């Protein structure tokens, strides 16, 4: 193996890289949430944002050698799983009731 490459692997990846990745993922999630019409895609965008946050939690936990951040990630994952169950159920119910998953059509909250 290329010794330079080995050396690179032995080095730590800088903190900023993780954070940039996390911010990029989060922004992708936000944009997806805002512009996508399909409810399932919107839902996936939310998951993307959650995981972007998870990434930054893990990053900081590793950086400061604090386990709290990692525990928090487990919480987030658990809540996300519950949310997925409830959210998907709602989506199915909405689809059965209205025969559409276009977000623009689901506007019962309007006066």
């Amino acid at each position: 193996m290329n010794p330079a490459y080995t050396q690179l692997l032995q080095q730590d990846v800088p903190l900023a890289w993780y954070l940039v990745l996390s911010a990029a993922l989060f922004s992708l999630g936000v944009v997806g949430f805002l512009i996508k019409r399909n409810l399932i895609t919107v839902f996936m965008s939310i998951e993307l944002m959650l995981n972007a946050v998870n990434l930054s939690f893990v990053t900081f936990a590793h950086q400061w050698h604090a386990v709290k951040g990692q525990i928090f990630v487990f919480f987030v994952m658990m809540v996300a799983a519950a949310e997925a169950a409830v959210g998907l159920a709602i989506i199915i119910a909405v689809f059965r009731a209205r025969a559409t998953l276009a977000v623009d059509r689901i506007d019962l909250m309007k006066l």
Partner: protein
Amino acid sequence: MNAILYLWLIPLLPFAGFLLNGILGRRLPKWLVATVALLAPLAAFCMILQISIGLYASPVAFSHLPFIQTCPLGWINVGTFHADFSFVLDQLSLTMLLVITGVGFLIHIYSVGYMSHEEGYARYFSYLNLFLFFMTVLVLAGNALLMFVGWEGVGLASYLLIGFYFQKKSAADAGKKAFIVNRIGDFGFLIGMFLLVANFGTLTFTEIATKLGQDPGWQGGVVTVIALCLLLGATGKSAQLPLYIWLPDAMEGPTPVSALIHAATMVTAGVYMIARNHVLFDHSPFALSVIAIIGAATALFAATIALVQNDIKRVLAYSTISQLGYMFLGCGVAAYSAAIFHLMTHAFFKALLFLAAGSVIHGLGGEQDLRKMGGLWKKLPVTFWTMTVAVFAIAGFPPLAAYFSKDAILYAAFTQGTNGKILWTVGLITALLTSFYMFRLWYMAFMGTSRNPETHPHESPFTMLGPLTILALLSICGGLIGIERFGNFLAPSVGARLIDLTDPRVEPVLGIVAVAIAVLGWFVAFSLYSEHPKQPARLVAALPRGYKLLVHKYYVDEIYGYVVVKPLLGISKFVLEYVVDVAILGGLAWLLGGIATFAGAILQRWQSGNIRSYAAWVAAGAAALLLFVLVPWGTVWPESLAFVWKVAGH
């Protein structure tokens, strides 16, 4: 003497009766309502009687009066000012309590018969018990503030009972009139209390008396102002000039109420209040002379109106005002014991007059017009005899009650210097008028033949005749106590009047003059209404203006209507309703509503119902927050401004 320890039971027993009948009365049978209502004043009366007998039997206990009982919890404690729930038992309050609960109990019994066919039986008796509660609080109160509680409370009970037949507009209006006119008097009472607190720092009667006694500097000045304010309160409650106008209208209430509240007890509260504060009034000769003048003027004024009234209850109402004038005259010449003596005898014979009149009205099925009566002596014998006793008593024939008490007041006025002679003359003329109008009533109602043959009068039930008989006995014997014994008894409470020693032969002479005047009044009434029945009409024809003036009660109601009521109504209507209510308050409300509607119309667009737009706003908000927190604006702004400045070419 254990009974004294339970002084607080005296007001609370009628209050319990009020609560019981007021809450449950509608569901209870009539006999139970009446029993509850009668037991309360009876128990209170028995307690007071027991206390009196105990005091009479033991001079040691008697010398310990006044007995003061204070609620240990306190009431108002602000800085150095204290007011407690304290009850005072002394000779004055004992006399008043005996009269109030005694006469009150008799009138309760009478009411059982009188009200038996009426709607609202329980309501009537609960109000009556409520009245007794407040009246006993008023009399027992050890400070002006607690007295004011009772004072307002009896006003409330009076209002409720005047307006008892509230479906009738005249009755409801009369109740309101009584309340509003009394408020004017209460205003004076309140101002008087404020001044007492400001100058003496206390409202307790005994402390005020002590402070007045310690410093001879309290003479006239502020004391006069306080006394005049309290006097205004007294004129309202006791129906004196210029606030007497509510009492004749108060006759809209049931007749027993007129007897109890508007003749025997409540209207005498003003006299009682003056006697209770006599030390204050003694320090202000000016206020005393004002009281005397008001009393004498009211006595004469009301008596002249009573001459021509044709409603049996209105004659008695004006007579009450006139007799209260006598009591004020007595207070005004510092003969408080004479005034209280007259208060007591008046309670007997005026309650009797009203109850007998009520019996007549009851027997005639609601007829109150004297012109439609006549010849009732055969049909209503018991009512007739008791009424005769009352008429002779009020006219001042010895040895009936009013002869002694009225004589005591007139004698006290006569011995009060030159001005006293004038007051005495006015009192004597009033006595003549009193005798005349009472015998006029007597002849018109009971003598001759019936002027309305269609009526079939019937005698009243025993529940009504019993109290009449007892009150007739009291009206006969009540005066025999004698003013000297009564004055000595009351002296520790109201002080003994120092009479300048005129000729001791004066008193019998004055008594003979008074009797002669009473006989003269009888004779005039006899010749006008029995011998020459056509004469009164001719007299009216000869003096049309004078008659009209009297029939319209000197147009006082009309004058008050134009001078006070109309302008007040006008101000309320135009200033308060149109300017304040419609323009200012309504405009403000409209403005606020308009702003909210306008803002809502604009902000409504935000609520598109589109979730993504909401999410976009959330994201924008988060971005704005981040910008606000992360960017060090304090340094960025000056630098960027400087940069723009440079770019612009400087």
